[in-house]
């Protein structure tokens, strides 16, 4: 069965079934959820790659679907993340306050995802978009913080309403909600308007620079099995919108022609996107470096990776765009893996604070490996998927000669080393805390399975990217870009050719050697706590540091003052709205009848002065 409509109906139905099953036994309901998700993934995977998905509509006449390469690419990645995460449900869902609705909302938001990526008109796209917003929004408060959902909704709503505005502008031009028709009809000022509106949507969904506040809130406080979905899957909705905005609206209407200048040949709008994207990379990296909570740290890393995607799309060359698309996959896998590993740790220990954890490698070695591979991919080190995408992006950046962007991009990469290493060190390495020594065990098999699959894929995408790049080449052609030339083993860039398999081989070889050295020359010595120092930061009293507290304190000191600026900005905004509200109450809603009369008199006076005089 590969009819999209039927898949949607199936998800709705299984949502209802899972409600009752979960009510009866949460384990059974969650297992049911796994099978439902698996079914959807299997149908998509079986027919989708060959483009044989059935998009006809028989039951709900208002809907209409279309399979595009881009939509399918996003869909399969996100559904895969959903599937992987659903394996965690049996162990987590039972604890939540409204466990029945958890599985329901999970399945419903999955339905929204499918609706989004297979939509063939903007209204349906918006419908599905909003549908995902509220279904996922209701899941977040089951985690730690109740406020997180509010900021998640606020930014999501801002984004989707901006998109709606853009859609409506497009509709007024083209007269229909059709995606291709609408995008093709734009020109001039309207194109700019729609471009900006879609970018607002893309940025706020991706959590890129000016709209990043919700990311750490929502990712950090969401239920543990939902954080990977948010970061690995739902954030990518922003990238999907960004494709519309950056690659489909503006290329036909460049703002300023840079042909005769020394600047790179990018329209101004895209150039701004690139700049904002690199800002996202820098800020995300810096914020992640100072974060204590492992999940929030990864959330900031999502922000910086969102920046990579934006930079890639903004540059607009085939290589860059291919890198962007590849990065979507790589980051989805890496961040899902990392978040799932942390979720597994949190499941076994109950906390995600790095300062409260340590030495998990002894108890949870497999989880450790999963996390290690994930962060290696995130940092863009071979032989993982992240390396391939970053390589492509770097190439494009250098190709365009964008020095500052290049600095930002490299800084992000180096920064990644800094911050992803911290949770690794803090959670898994270092001294084993006494309170976790006894009771903590490795995660159960059902949780390890998806993590291992993801790890395998992380490696696969880093070693043999050609199959995926072939697919993205199809997407590039759809977008009117030249495909990136690839052979079975090589990726041909403008400045050279990359053979990932070879690199992986060399890398593997190096690891093996290092491992042998490690085994052979193994002699670690015990030091006292006071002897520990890192990053040039001296330890002043005897505390359990293990690379967690104030790890990069000297670096942090440089910018710690400025980290809350954006947050304060939005808080001030909220306060201002509140003040307007209070002022409004004072002006209009006080207990004196005279006020209302005064307003009536004032308005009539205003009008009559205009009319009579």
């Amino acid at each position, binding site marked *: 069965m590969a009819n999209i409509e039927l898949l949607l109906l199936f998800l709705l139905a299984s949502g209802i079934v899972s409600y009752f099953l979960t009510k009866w036994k949460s384990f059974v309901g969650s297992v049911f959820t796994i099978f439902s998700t698996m079914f959807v993934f299997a149908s998509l995977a079986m027919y989708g790659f060959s483009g044989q998905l059935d998009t006809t509509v028989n039951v709900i006449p208002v809907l209409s679907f279309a399979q595009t390469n881009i939509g399918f690419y996003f869909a399969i990645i996100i559904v895969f993340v959903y599937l992987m995460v659903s394996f965690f449900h049996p162990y987590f869902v039972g604890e939540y306050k409204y466990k029945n609705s958890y599985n329901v909302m999970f399945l419903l938001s999955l339905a929204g995802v499918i609706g989004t990526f297979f939509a063939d008109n903007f209204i349906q796209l918006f419908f599905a978009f909003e549908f995902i917003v509220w279904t996922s929004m209701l899941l977040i408060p089951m985690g730690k913080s109740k406020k997180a*959902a509010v900021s998640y909704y606020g930014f999501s*709503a801002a984004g989707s309403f901006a998109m709606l505005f853009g859609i409506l502008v497009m509709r007024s031009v083209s007269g229909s909600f059709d995606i291709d028709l609408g995008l093709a009809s734009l020109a001039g000022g309207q194109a700019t308007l729609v471009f900006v509106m879609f970018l607002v949507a893309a940025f706020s969904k991706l959590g890129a620079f000016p709209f990043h506040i919700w990311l750490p809130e929502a990712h950090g406080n969401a239920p543990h099995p939902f954080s990977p979905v948010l970061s690995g899957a739902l954030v990518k909705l922003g990238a999907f919108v960004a494709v519309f905005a950056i690659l489909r609206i503006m290329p036909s209407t460049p703002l300023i022609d840079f042909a005769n200048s020394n600047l790179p040949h990018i329209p101004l709008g895209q150039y701004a996107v690139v700049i904002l994207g690199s800002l996202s990379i820098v800020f995300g990296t810096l914020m992640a470096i100072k974060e204590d909570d492992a999940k929030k740290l990864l959330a900031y890393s999502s922000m910086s990776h969102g920046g990579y995607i934006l930079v890639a799309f903004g540059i607009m060359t085939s290589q860059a765009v291919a890198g962007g698309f590849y990065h979507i996959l790589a980051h989805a896998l890496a961040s899902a893996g990392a978040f799932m590993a942390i979720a597994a740790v949190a499941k076994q220990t109950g906390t995600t604070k790095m300062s409260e954890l340590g030495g998990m490698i002894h108890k949870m070695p497999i989880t450790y490996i999963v996390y290690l591979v994930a962060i290696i991919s995130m940092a863009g080190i071979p032989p993982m998927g992240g390396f391939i995408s970053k390589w492509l992006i770097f190439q494009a950046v250098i190709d365009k000669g964008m020095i500052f962007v290049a600095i930002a991009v490299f800084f992000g990469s180096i920064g990644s080393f800094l911050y992803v290493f911290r949770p690794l060190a803090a959670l898994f390495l270092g001294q084993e805390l006494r309170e976790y020594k006894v009771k903590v065990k490795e995660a159960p098999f059902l949780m390890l399975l998806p993590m291992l699959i993801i790890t395998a894929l992380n490696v696969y995408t880093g070693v043999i990217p050609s199959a995926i790049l072939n697919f993205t080449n199809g997407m590039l052609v759809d977008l009117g870009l030249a495909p990136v030339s690839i052979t079975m083993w090589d990726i041909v860039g403008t400045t050279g050719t990359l053979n990932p398999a070879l690199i992986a081989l060399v890398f593997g070889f190096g690891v093996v050697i290092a491992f042998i050295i490690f085994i052979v020359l193994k002699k670690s010595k015990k030091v006292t706590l006071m002897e520990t120092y890192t990053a040039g930061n001296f330890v002043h009293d005897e505390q359990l540091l293990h690379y967690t507290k104030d790890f990069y304190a000297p670096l942090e000191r440089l910018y710690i003052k400025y980290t809350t600026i954006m947050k304060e900005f939005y808080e001030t905004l909220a306060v201002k709205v509140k003040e307007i509200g209070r002022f409004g109450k004072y002006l209009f809603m006080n207990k004196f009848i005279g006020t209302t009369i005064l307003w009536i008199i004032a308005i009539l006076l205003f009008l009559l002065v205009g009319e009579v005089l």
Partner: protein
Amino acid sequence: MSSLAVLLIAIPLIAAFVSILSKKVAPYLLLIASLINVILLFYFVPDGIVVIGGYDLPYGINLFVDTFSRTGLGVVNVLFLVIVLLNIVEFKKYSSVLLVALAGLNGLLLTGDLFNLFVFLEISGIAAYLITTSNHKPLATFRYLIIGAVGSSLYLFGLIIFYGMFGTLNLMDMVSFIQANNVDPSALVLPAMLMFIGLGVEAKLLPFNSWVKGVLKDSNTLSGPMIAAVYAATISFVFGRIINNLLTLAFVGNLLIVVLVLLAVGIFIAEAMAFASTKVREILLYSSIAQASIVILLFVNGIVLWAVYLIIANALSKTVMFLVINKATKDHGDDESDSLQGVFSKNILVGITFSVATLSVMGLPLFMGFVVKLNYLTELAVGAQWALLAVILISSIIEGIYFVRMLIKLWYPEKNEVTVKFDLGFKVVFVAIALILLALGTYTAPLNTLDNSIDTIAEVIDNG
């Protein structure tokens, strides 16, 4: 028997007159009358112009029964019956008042004569003042009375100026006269604006609505949904009819801009006021002010159909929301959102229906509010009202934020458990309304069938 529509007014009236004779019979009369009204409305009342007293318009008074008024009557009568059914035991002594209120509301929706409309405005207004006395806040009721009386006086003032200009009191006659003689819109500014303000007071448009707070923030299960849903729907329908036929003739050029700015600012400030509130009922009442302003905005822009659906969606949602919160407040004694935390953790079903209503008001998909919102925004875009669109969208963000905040507070208990018990009747009503919202949000075909009929009838009135 096209005159049967008159029974919608006559039956409650005669029941009201009889009901004061015996206190025991009164509640039954109320039930029977409102039930008969619903039955009459759906099975017996035909479309057409109902002549009263045997004198054709413009000399006599007449009633319009068209799709527009029929839709309004349907919503109002059904919701009225539902609210009455839920409250009849507790508020027996308001039976006669409610009967008169029903007659007044039906009269408002039906009448095609502007002075007759004033009379019904006063009838339903006084009934509303009396309904709000059940809050036991005489000062708030007094404020409502004074402002309401000033509002209807201004309406009458505007109407009389119109009469002085055109010599008729009939809506259709007046409109066709103005159109036939190409009256300069600037001559209509003063009376149109007086009427707008007069009705705006009743429709709780922003600068004229200080009565709303006092009335709704201490409301109970009768007065809350009655004023916020039934009355609001009625006034919106009536306002819509007047705006769409008469006032649009005056709303051109600068005056149109002034009116639109007034409404747009009203929407934003009302949402901001809701954002600044912590009491659940205050949040709801400010949000309903914003929604009412949006409805009027749509009417001013000539988007009749979706304004009508917005009225319906709001009436349904606000009924659920006010019933839930007022019941909870009554049991709990406080409607501070912090103190009502976790009220739904023991009442999952009620919580779900409340959430559905809230999500519908926020305009999220799967519920009626989304369909309505999307369509009216599209219509605004078609009319190239980008500034209004932006204001509405920005306000919607604010609205969404405070509603989400409120919902989460109501779902997740902090410390002390709040125990509120809902009767079966309440639950049935909540579930029914939630299902309607869900059904109309997913299966939009019924909305589209009404589509043409409302537009055509509006044209019929336009052309006299």
